[in-house]
């Protein structure tokens, strides 16, 4: 809605790839900026969904024997919920390092798609600035920003994205710390770590949106259950890889 000088500061027009820091900016503090605030405002409903997810990441970390520094270190360095929960789960069951890393990496492969999809919107910024923006890329920040950029071409790309992505980052870190503290005080009988598969379930259901994706989910889950006894916790990877293969086969031969 607001224009606030974006067309003047070269957001959309300046092709020179000055490899400097942030694009020039009418409001260096950024905190009172309309586009940043719009990003924060639009992401607020999603923060309500992220907060319990972050709490669970903290709770599960404690349960798996991680300390506060490790839990927060993971939330800052990895900053990708589903992969963190999977890694914590595997660490808790004493899986080998390669399986923990391999599983988390497969889960985060989807970021490549987000990166490709949002890249044109950041094309005019300097390389280092883009490298900073990339760190904050998440499912939610991606989905919200790309939808807004398509609906509103006047919107400052980096400011709107930054507002949404940074708010997610802050809530994620605070939620992790609170989860570690809370998780240490809740009796095991409550089974709070059961919330981990529930989070995945809430993400899974909307991801199965047509025949091939549904087939991928059904196959991935079935194989993972059948292979649950495999050594080195390889059942998860076996399920994931078979699910992807079945999705592709269904796409090709399905209809």
């Amino acid at each position, binding site marked *: 809605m607001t224009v606030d000088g974006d067309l003047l500061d070269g957001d959309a027009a300046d092709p020179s790839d000055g490899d400097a820091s942030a694009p020039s900016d009418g409001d260096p503090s950024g905190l009172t900026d309309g586009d940043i605030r719009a990003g924060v405002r639009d992401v607020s409903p999603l923060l309500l*969904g992220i907060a319990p997810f972050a709490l*669970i990441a903290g709770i599960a970390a404690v349960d798996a024997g991680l300390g506060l520094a*490790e839990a927060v*270190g993971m939330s800052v*360095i990895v*900053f990708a919920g589903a992969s963190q929960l999977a890694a914590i789960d595997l*660490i808790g*069951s*004493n*899986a080998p*390092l390669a*399986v*923990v*890393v391999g599983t*988390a990496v*497969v*889960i*985060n492969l989807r*970021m*490549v*798609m*987000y*990166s490709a999809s949002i*890249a044109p919107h950041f*094309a005019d910024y300097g*390389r280092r600035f*883009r490298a900073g923006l*990339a*760190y904050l890329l998440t499912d939610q920040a991606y989905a919200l920003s790309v939808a807004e950029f398509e609906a509103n071409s006047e919107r400052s790309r980096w400011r709107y994205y930054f507002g949404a992505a940074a708010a997610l980052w802050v809530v994620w870190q605070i939620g992790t710390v609170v989860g570690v503290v809370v998780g240490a005080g809740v009796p095991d009988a409550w*089974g*709070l770590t*059961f*919330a*981990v*598969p*529930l*989070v995945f*379930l*809430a*993400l*899974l*259901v*909307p991801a*199965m949106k047509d025949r*091939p*994706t*549904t087939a*991928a989910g*059904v196959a*991935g*889950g079935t194989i*993972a259950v059948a292979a*649950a006894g*495999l*050594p*080195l*916790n390889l059942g998860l990877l076996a*399920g*994931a890889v078979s699910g992807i293969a079945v999705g*592709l086969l269904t796409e090709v031969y399905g209809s």
Partner: protein
Amino acid sequence: MTGGSLIPFGGSLEVWLAIVVIGLATYGFRLSFIHLFGRIDEVPARIKRPLRYVPPAVLAALVLPDLVTVRPSVAATLADERLIAGAVAGVIAWRTEDVTATIAGGMVTLWLFRFVVFV
């Protein structure tokens, strides 16, 4: 569910190593096309097509083993508080697509079975 351990997670060092390696790989994925844009503008179809199936396949492979444990009889497999709570949560996820409602519904169902029904 403990698997064999080539490099078991005994110490903090392995945990930090896992965190750093996962973090670096994830950052590489995030940066990939944002960095390369201009040289490679489109994800090649050969990469894009399988990527579409990563979320449902991986998420289902994460969820189901936590809800289902195959037991000798079908009845014993189905009469599991985690599976029932998961089914309730699945319906809520399907109807509302709300993470918080899904977690709440699943946890409350689990607690009902754990603390009320089977007492």
